[in-house]
C-alpha cells in the first residue's frame, strides 16, 4: 500500500493525540488508583466510588481519541 507523506504525518499526529493522552491518563490513574485501593481496603463499601474516581481521568484519553478521529475524518484522504 502506497502512503503519501501527508497521510503518514496525519497518522503520526493521530497516534500522538491518543498516545500522549493515554500516558497522561495512566499517570493520573496510577496515583488515584493507589489512593482509592487504600480507601477500599479500609472501607470496602467505597468500591463504587473507587471505580468512579479511577475512571474519571479516562476522559482525557477519550478526548485524545476524539482529536485523533477528527484528524483522520476531517483531514484524512
Amino acid at each position, binding site marked *: 500500500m502506497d502512503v503519501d507523506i501527508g497521510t503518514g504525518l496525519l497518522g503520526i499526529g493521530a497516534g500522538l493525540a491518543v498516545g500522549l493522552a493515554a500516558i497522561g491518563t495512566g499517570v493520573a490513574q496510577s496515583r488515584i488508583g493507589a489512593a482509592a485501593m487504600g480507601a477500599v481496603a479500609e472501607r470496602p463499601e467505597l*468500591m*463504587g*466510588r473507587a*471505580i*468512579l474516581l479511577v*475512571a*474519571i481521568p*479516562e*476522559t482525557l484519553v*477519550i*478526548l485524545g*481519541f*476524539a482529536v485523533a*478521529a477528527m484528524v*483522520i*475524518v476531517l483531514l484524512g484522504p
Partner: protein
Amino acid sequence: MLVPMTKVRIIGRRERLEEVLEHLYSLRLVELVDVEAEPLPAVDRPSGSEERTERRERLRLLVAELDGLLDLTGGDGAPVAEEIPFEPHEVDPEGVRAEVRALAPRVDELTARIQALFAEEVVVGRYIGLLRHLLEIVPELRLLDTELAALRLGTIALVLNTEDASVVELLREELRGTLGARFLLVSAPVEGGALGCVLIFPLDARAEVHELLGRQRVRQVPLPDAYRDLSLRASVEAMEARLRAHPGEVVAARAELDAVLGAHSAEWSSARDALTARLEQLDAVRWTGATRRAFVAAAWVPRHELARLGDALVGRFGGEVVLEEASAGRRDTSAPVLLRNARPARPFEFLVRLYDDPRARSLDPTGLVALFIPLMFGLMVGDVVYGAVLLAVALVVRARLGARSPVVRDGSLALAAGSVCAIAFGVVYGEALGDLGERAFGMPALWRHRDDADALEPLLLFALAIGTAHVVLGYVLGLWQSWRDRYVRPALAHVGSLLVLAGLFGLAAVATERLPGAALGPAVAVGIVGLVLASAPHGRLGLVLGPLELVGMIGNVLSYLRLAAVGLASVYLAVVANELATVGPIWMGVVVAAFLHALNLALAGFTPAIQALRLQYVEFFSKFFVGGGRAFRPFGARDGSGRAARPAPAAVPTTPVRTGA
C-alpha cells in the same frame, strides 16, 4: 423503584412487650427505630431492666460458649444462619446450659491434651536439633551411654553465645580448678553464631559443676522435666520416640473430641441460632419506651406491608396491641430504602448499590441501569461469537456459583444480558470473531462493518447520539425530581443545562451545514440563556462555575465516544488476530489467532463492563442521583455475615423524652 415506607408505632400492654417483639421478629416486616428520638410524650424505658439485663447476659454467655464449642468441631462453627428458623419455644436455655456444663470438663480435658501435644512437639523439635548436633561433637557418647552410667559419669550440654574459642579455654581452666583432671569438655560451632559444648564429669561433683556454670553465667540447654535425668544420648532417643508417637496421639485425641462434640453439634447449632434470636429480641427491648401500663415501639415498614402487619398483630394479640401510622413518615428522608424492581432489572440493583444507596424519596435508577448497561456493553463488544462465549460463561457461573453469593448470581445475570446485546450488535455489525464471519462465510452487516474505513464517522456520531440521549435523560430526571420536591434553583439549573446542550447542538448542526446559517443566532441565544440559568443558582460564583459547567457538559457528551473507541479497539485486535492466522504455517496461525482472540475476549468481558459502569456513575448519575440512603434491614433478618439488624439511626428529636428509671 423505591418501595414507599411508612413509620408506625406499636402500642400495647406492657406485659406483652416481649411477646410482641418475638412476633415482630418472626414476621421480618419492620425495622425498629429507637423511640428515644421519637416525638412522643414522655416515656420511660421498660422496667424490669435488671432482671432482663441479667437474663440477656446469661444468654449472651451461653451463646458464646456454644460458639466456642461449635468452633471446635471445625465444620459447624459458621456464622449464624442468614435466616434463623424461628422456633424459640423449642429451646430451653437451662437445658442447653446444663448439657454444655456436663460436657465441658471432658471437652476441656481433651482440648488441653491436644494443646499440650502441640506444645510438646514445638519444644521437642526445638531441642532435638541442638542435642543431635552436640552429640555429634562426641560421637563416642552414642556408644558409651551405658558405660558412662556405670562409671557414674554425667553429661551436660552447654551453649556459649560466642564464636570465640578462647572462651572455651577459659571455661576449661575454671573446671580444671574445681575438678582437676576429672572432666572432658569438647566444643564445636552450632547454628546462630554460638559454640555448643558437651561436658562429661563425675556425678558426685554435680553440685560443684552447676555452681561453677551458674557463677560463670554459662547457659545450659534446659531440657524438659521428662528428659532431665536422662543422658544426652538417651534424651535424643526419647525425643525421637516422642516425635514418632506424636501424630498418632494427636489424631486419637482429636477423634475422641470429635466423637464427644459430633453427637451434639447439629443440636447445638440449632440451639445457638434460636438463642441468638431470643438475645436479639431482648436487645430490642432497649429501643422501646414504656409508661406505667403500656409500651410503645417505633418502626419503619414498607407501605404495602402495613395491612399485613396490622392483621398479624390483631390476629395474635387482638385488641391488646394497636398499630398506629405516624403521620411524618411519608416525607421523612431518613426512612430506610428498599429497592423493588421488575424481575429483569433486579440483578442490576447491586450495581446501583455499589455506587450508593439512593436516598429515601429520591429516584431509583435501577430500571434505567438495566436498560443502558447491557445496551452499552453490547454496543462495545458487538461480536456474535464473543457474545455467545460470554453468555455461556455467565450461565455456567450462574449455575455453579450463583447459589454461593447474591453478587455472583446478579453479576452473572447482568453479564448474560450484556452478552445477548453483544450478539445482537454482532448481527448489526456483521461480526463473528472480528471479520472472520465476513471473510469465511460472507456474513452481512445489518448496518455496517466496524472495520470498514468509512465506518468511523457514523460510529462516532452514533456514540454521541447515545451519549446525548443519556445525558439529556439524566437532566430531565433531575429536573423532574427538583420540580416534584419544589426545589426551584436546582430545577432552573437543570433547565439551563438542557438549553445549553440544545444551543451547543444547534451550533454543531450549523457548523456541519445540517441547519441553515440563519439558525446560528437562535442557537447562540438559547445557549447563552441556558448558561445564565445554569449559573444563576451559584450566585457570583456562577461567573466561574458557569463556564466550568459548560466545559463539563461538553466533556460529558464527548465521554460517550468511548462506546465507539473501545469497540473499535476490540474489532481491530480481532482483525489483527485473523490477519496473523494467514501468515506462516497453518498450525502457527491458528495458535496465534486463538491466543489473540482469547486475549480480546478477556478484555471484552472486562473493559466494556467498566466503561459502561463509569458512564452510568459519572455522566448519568451526576445529573439526578441522590445518594446517602440506608438499606432497609427488617428486624429478624440478617446480612450475609449473620449479623442482626441494629436499630435505625434516630431522626432528629422534636420532643424531649425522659429515659431511665
